[in-house]
Every structure is written in structure tokens, then in C-alpha cells.
């Protein structure tokens, strides 16, 4: 029902056509909502939804970000993941047109929007603190964008109702924002962005002001809606789990640069460098000398990263947690220094060949817990070892 409906079905193969389609967008075709449901892959063939080319932003002498290059496909869900201060939110605001750039070019479809004001970019945005209009009821908040587009009132009412249904807020249409909980506010904010059928949806830490339970629910709901609408989405977060669960691809940002653009799985299991490994998971970072006994060879790379859950423990020759990997490193003797119960995971700190290793195992049963001082053998899955440049 939402988004992308104004682009012709076999959309824009030439720049001209796509551009024309984009310009046409604000005047939304009234029959648009008919072609509802699954348009997920409609635009797979029409090139990128967004291209970022050499974006740079300075604030005084410091680079907020620089050399941002990325291509995002239609319908992709991209997460900008990074610690606070890495420039991810500013990048999002620059794409929205809320912050000027010092260099670079932003293409949506094939249209250069770098110098368009925010209201003409066809971009929707959801803010961390909702930014609902306190003077308007839920329905009027959602209708705001349509009123700006001069959509006739009967169509407006229908589309507002539709989108409120989508975010399960149709019963709250006549409440004011201050009467809603945080999670409900964010749903309304989402509906408000969706109703104008933006070409791209930007979300700036939309879940971080909510409490854990609601965050999980809304996370799944956002992803579901995004998938069903085939809406190209950029989602900013500092939460690794959020990024892993929601994204088609993750852009890992660090100090104003994109360290790695990859699938969540690849970002997690194959970090490109030490910074990426430091931010994702709980990698044990060893240098080549320290790692040699575990690997059975001297790595050429400066640093070796081991995932705690890809290390294998054996007690008295019996593998703990069953089968071994195909390509396994030599067993190295170690001692359990302590264990911590993280819920479904038991995390062991193991002193092993002069280094301290972290090993994660499933918390299957209290009977299988290894006591402090237990002698173990540690094996490495050689296929899961990451050799990092330094």
C-alpha cells in the first residue's frame, strides 16, 4: 500500500525516465494504493535506490565524516552501525537534507538530490524522540504530509486509516501524542513517514528511547513492514543486536568512515580489521606469536581474531558440546579461570598458552558447567579464524 507506488512497474531503465518518475512523485497517483502487497523485488532491475558518492562533512577543523561511498539497492534495509560520535546520525541528516555537505553527491534513483531542500527530496525520516507534532492528534500528524501534497480529503482519510492499520494504531487515531506511550509514539511517527510513500526511509535510532520489551516488538514490526512494502531503508543504531537482526546489509562506521559494508553475518564473522572486530561481538584479539600454538602455524597477518563461540573445549579428551570442525587447530592445554553465566550463554575465561581466551558455550545444563581450575583443551576452527591487517 505504501511507498514506491509512483514508480512505473518496469521502472526507469534510462536516467531520463527515472528522473521524470521522481519529479512526478509528489503528485501521488490516486490509484497507487491499489497495487498493494508484495512489491519487494519490483525494482531490483532499476539500479540503485541511493548512491552516495564521496560525501564529506567538516565541522570546524574536524571531519564528522569523509569519503562516504555506498550504493544501496531498491528495497534494501541498511543499518549504519557504530559507536556514538562516529558520524552516523550526521550522515543520515545529510541525506535528509537537514545538514549541508562539504563535498560529495547524493543520488536517489538517478536524480541528484544533493542540493534539494529537505521538503523536495522525497525522503521520509523517523527520529529518535518521535518529533510528533504535539498540537495535532494522531490522525492529523499522519495526515500532515498528505495535506502538504494537497491530497483530497477523502483520499487522505483513506490513506491515513490504511497506514494506521499497518502500524496497529487505528484505535488511537483521535488521541494526542502526549496520551501515548513511547512505543505508540514511534509507531505514529513511522506511519507519518510511510503515508507519503517516500522513496527512501531514514530512521535515526528510532528504538533507543524505548524500553527493552517494546524495542524488540517494534523492531520486528518495522522490519516486517519494511519488507512487505519493499521500502529502501537506512537505519541508524549503536546496538549490535538490532543491526544483526534487522539488516540486509550493515555499514559499520568508525570515526567518520565506513569500515565495512557487508551482510550482518559477514560483518560479524569476518570483520575486516581490528576496529571492526573490536566493535562486533567479543573477539579475542591475539598477535601472530600468541596465536601460533592455537593455529599450529605462524600467521602472516599482524593480528588474529578468534570468535569466543568458534573455540572448542574438550575435557579429558571428550569434546564439550559435541562435534569438532573439519579443519581444526592443535589442541592446547588451558585452565578455566572463571565462568560467567550470561543467560543462554556460559562465557569461560581460560588461561591458555600464556594468553587469556574467552570461550562461549551454550548454557545447556548446570551439570555441564566447568568449575574454576578445570583442566581443558582448546581447539580452534581454522575456517573461522580471522587474520586482520593492522
Amino acid at each position, binding site marked *: 500500500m505504501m511507498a514506491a507506488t509512483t514508480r512505473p512497474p518496469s521502472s526507469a531503465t534510462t536516467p531520463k525516465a527515472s528522473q521524470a518518475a521522481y519529479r512526478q512523485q509528489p503528485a501521488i497517483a490516486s490509484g497507487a494504493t491499489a497495487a498493494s502487497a508484495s512489491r519487494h523485488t519490483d525494482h531490483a532491475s532499476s539500479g540503485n535506490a541511493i548512491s552516495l558518492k564521496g560525501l564529506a562533512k567538516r565541522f570546524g577543523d574536524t571531519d564528522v565524516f569523509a569519503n562516504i561511498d555506498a550504493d544501496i539497492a531498491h528495497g534494501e534495509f541498511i543499518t549504519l552501525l557504530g559507536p556514538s560520535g562516529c558520524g552516523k546520525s550526521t550522515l543520515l541528516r545529510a541525506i535528509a537534507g537537514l545538514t549541508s555537505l562539504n563535498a560529495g553527491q547524493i543520488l536517489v534513483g538517478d536524480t541528484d538530490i544533493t542540493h534539494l531542500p529537505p521538503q523536495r527530496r522525497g525522503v521520509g525520516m523517523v527520529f529518535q524522540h518521535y518529533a*510528533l*507534532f504535539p*498540537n495535532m492528534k494522531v490522525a492529523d500528524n499522519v495526515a500532515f504530509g498528505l495535506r502538504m501534497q494537497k491530497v483530497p480529503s477523502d483520499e487522505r482519510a483513506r490513506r491515513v486509516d490504511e497506514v494506521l492499520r499497518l502500524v496497529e494504531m487505528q484505535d488511537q487515531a483521535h488521541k494526542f501524542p502526549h496520551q501515548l506511550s513511547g512505543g505508540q509514539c514511534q509507531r505514529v511517527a513511522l506511519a*507519518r513517514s510511510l503515508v507519503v510513500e517516500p522513496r527512501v526511509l531514514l530512521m535515526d535510532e528510532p528504538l533507543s528511547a524505548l524500553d527493552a520489551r517494546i524495542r524488540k516488538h517494534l523492531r520486528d514490526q518495522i522490519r516486517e513492514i519494511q519488507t512487505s512494502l519493499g521500502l529502501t531503508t537506512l537505519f541508524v543504531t549503536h546496538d549490535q543486536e538490532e543491526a544483526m537482526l534487522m539488516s540486509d546489509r550493515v555499514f559499520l562506521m568508525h570515526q567518520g568512515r565506513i569500515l565495512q559494508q557487508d551482510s550482518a553475518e559477514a560483518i560479524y564473522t569476518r570483520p575486516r580489521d581490528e576496529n571492526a572486530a573490536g566493535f562486533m561481538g567479543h573477539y579475542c584479539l591475539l598477535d601472530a606469536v600468541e596465536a601460533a600454538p592455537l593455529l599450529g602455524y605462524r600467521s602472516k597477518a599482524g593480528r588474529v581474531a578468534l570468535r569466543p563461540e568458534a573455540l572448542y573445549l574438550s575435557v579429558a579428551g571428550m569434546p564439550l558440546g559435541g562435534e569438532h570442525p573439519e579443519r581444526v587447530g592443535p589442541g592446547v592445554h588451558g585452565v578455566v579461570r572463571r565462568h560467567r553465566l550470561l543467560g543462554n550463554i556460559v562465557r569461560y575465561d581460560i588461561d591458555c598458552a600464556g594468553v587469556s581466551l574467552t570461550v562461549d558455550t551454550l548454557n545447556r545444563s548446570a551439570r555441564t558447567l566447568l568449575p574454576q581450575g578445570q583442566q581443558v583443551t582448546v581447539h580452534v576452527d581454522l575456517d573461522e579464524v580471522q587474520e586482520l591487517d593492522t
Partner: protein
Amino acid sequence: MAHADTMPAHKSPTAASLSATFNPYSWVVGGVFAVLALPLVATLGYALATRWGATLTPDGLTLAWFIELWTTPRFLAAFARSLFIAVGALALSLALVLPVALLAHTRYPRLDRWMNTLILMPFAVPPVVSSVGLLQLYAGGPLALVGTPWILIPTYFTIVLPFMYRAIANSLRAVDVQSLMDAAQLLGAGPVKAFFLVVLPNLRGGVQIAVFLSFSFLVGEFVFANMLVGTRFETLQVYLNNMRGASGHFTSALVITLFVFTLILTWLGNRQAEHTITEAAR
């Protein structure tokens, strides 16, 4: 505004449960109310009394004083003049303060700090003091406004400025203006439209109170009006002062009229503001 008001104050249960059992605050409220309301009640009694001598209660009730007042052309003229001056000064200050406060809040934080210092100045210079200064300033040359009613509008503007600025700046702080503007712009509104549709309505409470208080202050202002223009342009307060010699009942009726007038004005202002919002949201 509405938001802040309806947000339940986060208090520890003790406090609330205590207040359920005994209410010392009702005493405080009662006391303060009495202190503030007593003069008004006495005035009302006087205005309605046929005669009120040494007894505790008036001798009889009448509307004669009011009727006499409302049929006096001099009173009506003074009333109109006061309204004109007050509305003029307020319009001028709103038109100037709103954009400056908005800029200070969203773009130039340093401007806000400067303004906060500047607006203390009129407080530091009491009315009689600055009226002397203003008299000197406007007495000669190109600014020969002394004695004309026009001198009152810039003067009142100066007086009202600090109060308006603080009230509006506080309202802006309570609302996350930047985000609201951003959100409205991304939904297709230009900056001006965004301001009027999304920011201004949410400043309503603060701006409204500022305007109301300023208005009632200006209508009640006496020192400047008397010193700068005097009897040549008799405003309500100057008239009231000149009528001091008249019957106490008559002046009381005048006072009550003035009070009821400001009350009605506030009520209308409130209703209008709510109406506007409902409309805008439709």
C-alpha cells in the same frame, strides 16, 4: 504546553499518600488566595454598595455606579485609547521577538545568551527613571514625540520586550523546535509553513500568557502614560487617577470593569487559541 501539563509529576508514593491523608497545602492556597483576593472583593463590594459606612457589610446593592460609568463618554474614550496603545505595543513586540527568539534558539545559541543579558536592562531602570530619560530623548529634534500618544507605543514596547522574550524563549525550550521543524520539512512543508503549522501552535501557552500579562500590565500602566503624555491623551489609568477625587463607589466600579474586561479577554484568547489548533489539525 499541553504535554508538559498533563505529564504526571513523577513523585515518590510517600508524597502522594501523605497528601491524601492531610493537606497542609490547602491552608497555604487558602491563605495566599485570601491575601490576593481580599482587595478585589472589597472593591467589588464597594462598587455594588449604595452606601458602605462603618458597618462590616454594605447597606444595599445597586448597579447605579456601573451604569453611570458606562455612560460616561470620557471613560469610553480613555478605554479605547488604552486598548489602542496596548495592542499596538504588543503587536510590535510579537513581530520582533518571535523571529529573534526562534533564530536564537535554533541557529545562534550565543544570541540567546546576549538577549538574556539585554532584557534585564529595563528591569534595572525603573519606569520613572527611564521616563525621565525618554522625555529627554524624545523631547527635541527628529524624535519630537513628547506629548503625542505615539511616544507610548515604543515606550511600552521597550517595557514588554524582556517579558515577551523570556516567555517565548522558555516555550521554545519546552518544545523541541529543531526536530519539529525537521519533521515538518521532510513531510513537504517549507520552513515558513512549518513554523506556522507546527511550531507556533505549540508555543501557544507560553506566548498567550505573555501576551495576556503584558496586556493587562499595559492597560494598567500609569507612570509612563502620566509623565509622557499626561492629560493630553488620557488613558484608562490616567483617567482613573484623575477621578480619584470622585466617589469611591464610582472608582470601584471602574476598577471592577477593568478587571472583568481583562478576564473576558483572557477567556476569549484561550478559546480562540484552542479553536485555531483544532482547525489546524483538521
